[in-house]
């Protein structure tokens, strides 16, 4: 017994004294050494981390069968059983990339997302800092592929679609009039400031069944939740001034705020000569208010309401008679109110509800005037279109409810319903028109993860318009496959319906829905700080509105092309963030008064954008030059040679010269008193190029004049100041 004891003791001593070295090299499938692999003898302290050559080495006093665990983030953990005896162990091995973390498909990335999310192509800051955008969401989005550079009008013309084929949604509810009213060929701005939104998702096609009534594109905006801190702000510029207040309670469960701004470009127009004679300077008053509060169960209720008034009056030379002028006078008001409620329910259900109300009113007078600005009596009937009084009122009330159920894994089911009430009234000289529509829609959509690398999103939307007396079903589907880490391929299909514009419906209420089918193939490479997006698409337009010889749905058309987007955020060029896009499109349509299938005047075949951003942290200053290029756009003069003709004649046509625009903007961040200030300056068309947006013709077709910007360049300088109450330091200051 005693001998045995001593024996064991001796054995134990020898065992513990015998240190064994375990070493080796770890590589990946491409035979590249892996750095930072943690090599551990399971449940012991013994192990090492591989160096830059993939090598590891450690000693151990453990004996017998042990588990060697090799772990590295993004790779499958490998467990090797080793039998430790009296000899050193050399063990080289290979780790495989972790399929679970790298091959998971993402359904969301079908649209261009702006916001703080991982798949975002633009951040909210981008909208402010992109040269030429001047804080206008739509203007910033025109730097993304698939959109057209239209200097003569606002809005997003996407993939062969006209601007009205893009609809914008705030918290799920459609915005009827996202832009301020303006005169023909004088572009206006978006009503809503970018800082109102935390997420901007811009879909250039094949969007979800949750949205409808847009043939081409959906811009889905989600408003911010309760802000981090109370704040007061002021904007001072030669063009406008404004101020606002935002209060947040201590627990960050309730906030309210309001803003007011007044824009008057009078001073600016005195300094920078404009081509039209502005007899009433464009002026805008805008007030908005909001409140947001958290509900007991982690939901949130948000209200945002805004009212604005704008006016402008301008005189331009008449194209028909050189001695005469067209005087255009506009007054407009717009109310928009949105109340939304998001609430998590039991059993992984979620409720999203939104109510919105908007009313847009315009009062427009156009008059033919002589050289001394006095009314010129009308002698020809066709001048009716040049001398008119127009009043329109567009009222929208909407309600929408979406229920979402999160199922096992990432699978999800969404369904809901939506109701729009629209009352449209138009008085044009002695004519009065009225339209009333009750539009209802029901929709359902499912996210189905068929396999780790394969996901299907399928949905269907039912729509009925009481005005049209017609119903339709719009199926939507997309299949995403992540064929390699960071690489995803998505095929999408969707059918989209849109009511004809009210302008045509007042002539014929029997017009049915116009429709477009989208077939899209998307390839996305998402690197650490780089992103490549390549899309090919085909769009088939049916039942477009024809206005001649009658108002019918006999129009049709197509669009096909490719869109390319590449962004590199400080990856290859240090401290420079840039993106490039290129779009090619071939699109023709036969609609309105087109005699046959022609390329519409809002489509340029080639578009190229380059956006560069650089921030100099040492001087707290950022600059952003942007360059936009578009090939020439077609223009036509369509003339009706006699009243009974079946078709309009194309009496003249051509293509404008290329469009080139170099913009530059800069901002400087600073402290002003106790406030945080941003000094912002921008200049458009640095190269001072004469861009032509198209041509217009006199009634006879004898005179032709280019459509030009109201001024070649736009300069902007502004100072934004905010005073915040930062509560994050309360505790620390209390302890000092």
């Amino acid at each position, binding site marked *: 017994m005693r001998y045995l004891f001593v024996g064991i003791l001796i054995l134990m001593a020898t065992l513990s004294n015998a240190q064994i070295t375990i070493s080796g090299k770890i590589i990946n499938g491409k035979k590249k050494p892996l*750095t*930072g692999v*943690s*090599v*551990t003898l399971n*449940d*012991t*302290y*013994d*192990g*090492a*981390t591989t*160096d*830059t050559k993939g090598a590891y080495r450690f000693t151990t006093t453990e004996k017998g069968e042990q588990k060697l665990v090799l772990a590295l*983030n*993004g790779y499958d953990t490998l467990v090797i059983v080793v039998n430790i005896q009296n000899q050193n162990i050399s063990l080289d091995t290979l780790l495989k990339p972790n399929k679970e973390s790298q091959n998971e498909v993402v359904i969301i990335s079908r649209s261009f997302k702006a916001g*703080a999310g991982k798949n975002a192509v633009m*951040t*909210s*800051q981008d909208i402010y800092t992109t040269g030429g955008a001047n804080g206008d969401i739509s203007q910033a989005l025109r730097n993304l592929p698939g959109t057209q550079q239209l200097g003569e009008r606002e809005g997003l013309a996407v993939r062969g679609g006209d601007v009205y084929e893009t609809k914008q949604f705030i918290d799920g509810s459609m915005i009827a009039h996202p832009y301020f009213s303006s005169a023909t060929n004088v572009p206006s701005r978006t009503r809503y400031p970018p800082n109102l939104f935390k997420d901007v998702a811009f879909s250039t096609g094949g969007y979800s069944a949750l949205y409808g009534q847009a043939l081409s594109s959906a811009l889905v905006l989600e408003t911010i939740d309760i802000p*981090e801190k109370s704040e007061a702000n002021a904007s001072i510029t030669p063009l406008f001034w404004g101020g606002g207040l935002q209060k947040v309670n201590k627990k960050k469960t309730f906030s309210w705020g309001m803003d007011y701004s007044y824009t008057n470009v009078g001073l600016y127009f005195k300094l920078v000569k404009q081509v039209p004679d502005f007899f009433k300077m464009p002026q805008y008053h805008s007030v908005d208010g909001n409140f947001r509060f958290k509900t007991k169960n982690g939901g949130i209720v948000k209200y945002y309401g805004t009212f604005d008034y704008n006016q402008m009056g301008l005189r331009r030379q008449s194209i028909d008679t050189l001695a005469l002028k067209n005087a255009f006078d506009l007054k407009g008001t717009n109310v928009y109110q949105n109340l939304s409620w998001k609430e998590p329910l039991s059993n992984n259900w979620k409720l999203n509800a939104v109510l919105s109300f908007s009313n847009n009113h315009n009062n427009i007078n156009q008059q033919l005037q002589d050289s001394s600005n006095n009314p010129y009596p009308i002698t020809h009937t066709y001048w009716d279109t040049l001398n008119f009084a127009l009043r329109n009122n567009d009222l929208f009330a909407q309600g929408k409810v979406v229920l979402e159920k999160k199922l096992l894994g990432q699978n999800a089911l969404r369904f809901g319903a939506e109701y729009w009430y629209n009352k449209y009234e138009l008085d044009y000289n002695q004519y009065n028109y009225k339209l009333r529509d009750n539009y209802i829609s029901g929709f359902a959509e499912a996210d189905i993860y068929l396999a780790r690398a394969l996901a299907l999103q399928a949905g269907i939307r039912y729509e009925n318009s009481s005005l049209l007396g017609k119903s339709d079903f719009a199926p939507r589907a997309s299949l995403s496959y992540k064929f390699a880490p960071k690489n995803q391929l998505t095929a999408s299909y969707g059918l989209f319906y849109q009511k004809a514009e009210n302008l045509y419906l007042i002539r014929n209420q029997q017009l049915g829905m116009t429709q477009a089918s989208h077939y899209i193939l998307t390839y996305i490479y998402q690197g*650490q700080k780089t992103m490549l997006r390549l899309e090919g698409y085909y769009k088939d337009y049916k039942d477009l509105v024809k206005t001649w010889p009658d108002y019918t749905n006999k129009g049709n058309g197509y669009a096909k092309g490719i869109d390319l987007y590449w962004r590199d955020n400080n990856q290859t060029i240090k401290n420079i963030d840039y993106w490039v896009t290129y779009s090619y499109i071939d699109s023709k349509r036969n609609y309105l008064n087109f005699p046959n299938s022609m390329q519409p005047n809002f489509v340029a075949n080639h578009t190229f954008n380059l956006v560069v951003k650089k*921030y100099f942290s040492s001087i*707290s200053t950022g600059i952003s030059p942007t360059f936009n290029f578009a090939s020439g756009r077609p223009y036509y003069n369509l003339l009706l040679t006699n009243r009974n003709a079946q078709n309009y004649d194309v009496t003249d046509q051509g293509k404008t010269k290329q469009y080139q625009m170099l913009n530059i903007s800069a901002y400087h*961040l*600073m*402290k002003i008193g106790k406030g*945080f*200030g941003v000094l912002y300056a921008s200049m458009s068309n640095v190269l001072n190029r004469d861009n032509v947006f198209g041509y217009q013709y006199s009634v006879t077709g004898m005179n032709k004049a280019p459509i030009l910007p109201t001024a070649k360049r736009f300069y902007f300088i502004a100072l934004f100041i905010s005073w*915040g109450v*930062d509560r*994050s*330091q309360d*505790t*620390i200051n209390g*302890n*000092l």
Partner: protein
Amino acid sequence: MKKFILSLMLLAGITTWANAQSDKYVAAMQKNLALFDSTKTAQDFLNLEGNFERIANAEKNQWLPYYYAGLCEALYGFQDPKADKDAIGAKVLDLAAKADAIQKTDETRVIAYMGYIIQLMVDPQGRYMTYGANAAKELEEGLKINPNNPRLYFMKGQGLLNTPEFVGGGKAVAKPILEKAVALFATDKPQPLYPNWGKDKATEALEKCK
């Protein structure tokens, strides 16, 4: 009787073994903490992170090795410009959560703070509102647990020193907080193996404020 002696011996054996285990833990911690004090390069911090994480995983009921593993991972993240800051931040937060699962401490709040700050560095302008707020919350919570933790003041002060003046940072704001940190470091008497780092760096940072 024989049985009794045997069980007594067995008991004695187990106790020694248990003591040996905890001695082994203390020894391993001391060895790695000594290494920590002399560590400079990113790679060394990564190696040390592995060492502490191995100890943590083997011990299972000690929060300190998870704490130090998180600290080393964070320091590695701050030092290596090429590192994937989102992944490192996530790992730091994961290690902090593991330490919290054993015992929630004011010291671990510093680690969680660092995790958020590393992720914030990916896109400071865009992430300031969310990640910055999360980081600040960790320090708040730490101060609630222990209002005399010098490292919490040091972190706050250094953060403010690195924050541009126009968003509420700068030397003037950081100075009183760093002064408080240095004063607390002077009287700080941590238990064996407990965090004691930061005094020199805090003094250095305070120097910069002058």
